């Protein structure tokens, strides 16, 4: 396994220049994701209109994989309906954990597939997606923080 399979140019670019990074105020949902084993922490904020994600931004600190995954995710789900975003969550989750998963039609998100060769890093990539899933499935205004442990 070569390092450049994990740290592809897309990942390095989104780590250096995270998209949709910063606060979002007002937001319809705000959820914190935390990985206590490694200390990665992010806050995801969404605006929902007509059951679609009209805006999404994130803040926090983490490794290149977690930062790039969150940045790519915000780009991918903006404008998507809740159901479409949840389908994407399922597909990315399979991509990260299942060697047989295909990355077709995932666009830039396919760059995350190198992570599955590094089991210790899968949680880095999946933290933001679990946080998104929690935000989309919550019904009330208070959403419990997401922990990967």
């Amino acid at each position: 396994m070569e390092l450049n399979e994990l740290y592809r140019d897309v990942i390095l670019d989104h780590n250096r220049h995270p998209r949709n990074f910063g606060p979002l105020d007002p937001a319809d949902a705000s959820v914190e994701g935390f990985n206590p084993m490694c200390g990665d922490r992010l806050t995801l904020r969404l605006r929902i209109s007509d059951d679609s994600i009209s805006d999404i931004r994130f803040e926090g600190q983490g490794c290149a994989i977690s930062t790039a995954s969150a940045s790519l995710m915000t780009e991918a789900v903006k404008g998507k309906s809740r159901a479409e975003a949840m389908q994407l969550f399922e597909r990315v989750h399979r991509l990260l954990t299942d060697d047989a998963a295909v990355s077709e039609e995932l666009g830039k998100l396919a760059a995350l597939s190198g992570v599955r060769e590094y089991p210790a890093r899968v949680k880095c990539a999946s933290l933001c997606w679990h946080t998104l899933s929690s935000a989309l499935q919550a019904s009330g205004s208070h959403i419990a923080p997401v922990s990967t442990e």
Partner: protein
Amino acid sequence: MEFFKRLDRDAVHAHESALLDYATRQLAGIPGLQIVGTAPEKAGLVSFTVAGVHPHDLGTVLDEHGVAVRTGHHCAMPVMDYFKIPATARASFSLYNTFEEIDRLAAGIEEARKLFG
């Protein structure tokens, strides 16, 4: 225990101290590298951060160089808060380590700086 009892403890201490001195000098010359913890009588280990490179990414790059370091908060979150850092990488030295391995550690850090810079 039988193995350890046969060792010359002064010689082991001298070797570990020499490795620590060498590693401290080698790492201190790397731009953006900050050594965390510099007590005069500390054990043979160096905990450090590298500007622009998260310790977990650094750990993965070093792993590919055959260098194993521990990364993260080392179950010492209050100290991490005190230093205002999320995590460090930590290399430790013992009687079986060599100076060449410290050179490999330094080379791996330089490669990580290039990759993420």
